[in-house]
């Protein structure tokens, strides 16, 4: 008989950020301390924006625009950057022991195992995606899902991801305070070149309910398990309420100051291959995001690959160089080599200003 996991499937209503995030945080705790098998939580949020645990929320978001548009904001307990959530985006939380036999070992292994489930789900609805190391799922060079995780109670971890069924680019550009906003002035929309959605890929409407069912089936097949639809027990309800009251509705958590300073810089470099213009967002000494633009010849897929290799890495010269080299191929950006690109990024770093 196959192993049974629990499934919290919420198709009734979209939830607040406090409720959704509190349920997710409870999952690994329940596996570790409440004798629960792995729990999968599939749901949607009300229109909202969620930053990663160590992001500077005031620098990442235009909070006054969020308030004006009625978009909730909050901070999650897993790593990574800003994500926009809403009724058309499937949110996924998984609580599981890292030593579960069907999970690959190590940081990279766990991300890979869970990516396989989502790739299977995409495949089932007719989308050929692939894993873009180390944390993203892409379709033809465009991101369709990002993955993040946190080691929690004992050896249990919380895994987070979201899958874009449909997406409001205009909302994102209005409420986010990232280097890309600057590019909007030039009428150049980076998001549409770097992101995609299920509906864009298929050219037809897919309901969130359908997508959630497909993800559920993909988990069952990939891990050879079956789900029991369930709801939080008494211990879990209490934990969820505690997290809502003590964490996700508290300014001390949402505006937590235990994060490095957020800065941004622009670097321009004339090269043989054309003008390189780099937009760099830094968190302390780490790269939060980078955009490579200019009038050179390359493909958006290749540029995305380079940007992706640099996201959430150290902004030290040797680290930048190594990370670019790890994805580099000949003529990736025509007439420009790794040291030149590194130089342009370091120029952006030198020009950094406090956000």
């Amino acid at each position, binding site marked *: 008989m196959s192993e049974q996991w629990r499934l919290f499937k919420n198709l009734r209503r979209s939830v607040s950020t406090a409720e959704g995030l509190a349920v997710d945080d409870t999952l690994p705790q329940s596996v570790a301390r409440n004798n629960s098998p792995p729990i999968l939580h599939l749901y949607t949020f009300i229109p909202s924006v969620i930053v990663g645990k160590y992001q500077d929320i005031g620098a990442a978001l235009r909070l006054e625009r969020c308030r004006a548009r009625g978009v909730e904001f909050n901070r999650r307990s897993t790593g990574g950057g800003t994500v926009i959530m809403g009724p058309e985006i499937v949110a996924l939380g998984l609580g599981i022991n890292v030593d579960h036999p069907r999970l690959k070992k190590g940081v990279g292994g766990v991300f890979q195992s869970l990516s396989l489930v989502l790739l299977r789900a995409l495949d089932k609805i007719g989308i050929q995606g692939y894993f873009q190391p*180390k*944390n993203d799922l892409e379709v033809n060079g465009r991101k369709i899902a990002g993955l993040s*995780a946190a080691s929690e109670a004992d050896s249990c971890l919380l895994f987070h991801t979201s899958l874009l069924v449909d997406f409001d680019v205009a909302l994102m550009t209005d409420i986010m305070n990232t280097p890309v906003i600057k590019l909007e002035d030039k009428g150049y929309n980076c998001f549409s070149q770097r992101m995609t959605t299920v509906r864009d890929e298929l050219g037809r409407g897919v309901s969130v309910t359908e997508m959630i069912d497909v993800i559920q089936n993909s988990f069952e097949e990939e891990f050879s398990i079956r789900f029991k639809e369930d709801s939080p027990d008494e211990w879990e309800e209490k934990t969820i309420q505690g997290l809502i009251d003590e964490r996700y509705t508290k300014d001390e958590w949402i505006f937590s100051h235990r994060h490095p300073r957020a800065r941004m810089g622009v670097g321009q470099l004339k090269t043989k291959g054309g003008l390189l213009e780099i937009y760099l967002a830094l968190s302390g000494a*780490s790269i939060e995001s980078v955009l490579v633009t200019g009038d050179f010849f390359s493909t958006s897929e290749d540029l995305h690959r380079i940007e992706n290799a640099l996201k959430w890495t150290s902004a*030290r010269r040797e*680290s930048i160089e190594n990370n670019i080299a790890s994805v580099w191929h000949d003529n990736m950006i025509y007439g420009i080599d790794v040291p030149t690109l590194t130089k342009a990024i370091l120029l952006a770093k030198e020009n950094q200003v406090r956000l």
Partner: protein
Amino acid sequence: MAEIKGYDMPDELFYHEEHSWAKVEGVKVTVGMSDLFQKEAGDIVFVDLPEEEDEVSQGETCGKIQSRKWIGKLVAPVSGEITEINEEMEEDTSLINTDPYGEGWILVIEAEDEDELQAELKNLIHGDAVQGFVEQEIAKAEEEKAKDE
């Protein structure tokens, strides 16, 4: 410096299975993350540290470490009071990658009692056992690679 299968694992240190190391000088214990950890995790981008004067117990999670989008745990290898935090970490967490046993130290724990500390050190990986620990960790990774092929 002892090198085991490409990882620097200095002989004089004690290692917790969650990859923190402990350097013992009397009752003063300097703590950091091992070379094995930093190579597996990749670039460390954030470190969430406890406060000085916090009391910690052996095996307790006393901090969080983010590499890429993964947040891992900093586990206290011994019990005691945190007496020092490496302030350089606030500006440059990559020190854990570039110099895990030197400038990349994370905090100092002062044990209350030397006998208790000695008893706790017996729970850590040290000496000849380090080789076995590293090999076991590598074997886990290789097993996965073999499954993929």
